């Protein structure tokens, strides 16, 4: 058994009633690797992510995380295991500030009094600063509420969450879809910083240039199935588009289509 496999899914499947949103996905991510997941809308990318981040429970199949078979009962479960996700719809509370959002749902406390536990504001502030530094995110005032931040800053806050919690796997679902040029560049810089730090990452993106800039490998989904597994150096944009649109399918995945 390979010891450098971070995440492996075997026959991962999700049906919503009669809709087969994800069918038999076999996926492998290795240590330090950045992999892009591409595909048309409704190809199963987001469904795949929802299964491995615990947002939904798969209909069938196995998820193996660092050699251990896991079953997440909820997003917090997955986060506790070390899978940090930056969702397409930012999971941020607009009226709270940066440390509050980073620690949402897993606040540091001084005394444990159940729901009335006293918050450790200082501890959360220090950890936030360290996390922002690690990702190279610059936010001038971490006590500003999210509502008062630009789209890029919001996205960076969401990404900084991953660094604050020593995540073992980062997943980003279209992190730059709503951002301007400069802000996109900043987010891409953060992703490069993660690559240099050897942190594994799954990137879901429609942006061909971005994908070729940032990742080592491209996995293409089509109609709920994986249809190609491409090493970046051995492919190009046109080739990937051919797989996305269904003009091509790799031989090893062909029998399902």
């Amino acid at each position: 058994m390979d010891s450098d496999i971070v995440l492996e899914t075997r026959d991962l499947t999700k049906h919503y009633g009669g809709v087969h949103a994800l069918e038999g996905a076999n996926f492998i991510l290795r240590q330090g690797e950045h992999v892009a997941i591409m595909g048309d809308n409704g190809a199963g990318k987001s469904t795949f992510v929802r299964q491995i981040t615990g947002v939904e429970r798969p209909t069938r199949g196995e998820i193996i995380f660092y050699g251990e078979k896991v079953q997440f009962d909820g997003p917090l479960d997955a986060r506790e295991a070390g899978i940090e996700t930056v969702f397409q719809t930012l999971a941020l509370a607009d009226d709270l500030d940066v440390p509050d959002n980073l620690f949402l749902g897993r606040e540091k406390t001084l005394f444990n009094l159940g729901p009335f536990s006293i918050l450790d504001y200082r501890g959360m502030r220090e950890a936030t600063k360290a996390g922002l530094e690690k990702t190279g995110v610059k936010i001038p005032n971490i006590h500003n509420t999210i509502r008062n931040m630009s789209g890029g800053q919001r996205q960076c806050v969401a990404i900084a969450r991953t660094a604050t919690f020593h995540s073992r796997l980062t997943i980003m679902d279209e992190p730059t879809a709503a951002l301007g040029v400069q802000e996109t560049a900043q987010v891409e810089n953060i992703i490069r910083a993660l690559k240099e730090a050897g942190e594994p990452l799954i990137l879901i993106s429609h942006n061909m240039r971005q994908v070729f800039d940032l990742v080592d490998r491209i996995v293409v989904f089509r109609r709920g199935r994986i249809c190609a597994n491409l090493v970046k150096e051995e492919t190009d944009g046109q080739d990937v588009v051919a797989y996305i649109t269904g003009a091509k399918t790799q031989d090893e995945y062909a029998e399902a289509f």
Partner: protein
Amino acid sequence: MTDGSHGVGGVTFDASRRRWPNEVNIFAALILIILIFEALGALLMNQSFLFDSRGRFDTIFNEQRLRIIILQVSIIGIIALGVTQVIILGGIDLSSGSVVGATAMITMSFAQVATVNGHPNPKAVFGPELMDLPAIVPVIVGLACGLFAGLVNGLLIAYTRIPPFIATLGMLVSARGVAKWWTKGQPVSFPTEGYAWIGSGMMPVIWFVLLAVLFHLILRYTVYGKHTYAIGSNEEAARMSGIAVDRHKVLVYAIAAMLAAFAAIVLSSKNLTAQSGMGVVYELYAIAMAVIGGVSLAGGRGSIVGTVLGALIFGVIQSGFTFLRLDAFYQEMVMGAIIVGAVVLDQWRQKRAALRS
């Protein structure tokens, strides 16, 4: 440009986006309203509204009026503390006035004395074995009533996904029914001395201040407070972050109803009697106090400090109208306009904030 003034990706951080706390605005509004009444007083009544104008210098303020103002807002203010939490959570509680009625009736029944002036208590609900009980018994019964009502509200809202407006509207009607059914409409009177102490003199103000401080600290410094703001701010994000949203909702509605129940205890103790009509429209006054105090009906924003200021504004306006000898009809008309105005102002501020970012 210095490093510190830079946002992410070269986006310059605009310091003006960080406004001073909203409570400052509300405090300014309070001062402004007082000044308006002072001016009207000087013009129309030839006397001061809040300051002692009779030429005695041992007191600066008109203590009697101040006392009335804070006393009359205290009891509804206690309800408003709970309503504030529910609104920050992104919900609404219309049931608190009826919970006050039902709780007052039931609680008072456990607080009665056996004999009044040597005669048996003419308003007795229970037999003598349930009379002359220590005051703690009716207090616990009252809080239990509140807990029950709050659990029903919270469980309905969290687990059947009924809109809070509907669930608490149901409770508004049902709890009022309980209040009337309990004694078939008869008032319940003659409480024990211990029970009467709870709401005597300035005690309602003391309870209000103590509870306001307690819940200010809880909202500001505990996980409970943080989750309340988080859910009101973005319920989906709170759920994705692993917050037990449904359980938390039940807790907040339970606490709100228990605060309404405590207000009922203080109110019935202060009046030395309980009637089935007690607390009618209190829920709306409590919501008004919160909204005037800057608690956003969209959820996620507001504070106990704001609500306390909102309660004071509420009291000052009421007292100011009495001072100007305006009829109660006008009071209600203007109060309605102020409530609507506060919501309009809040929406306008939200829109402006959205445009900025």
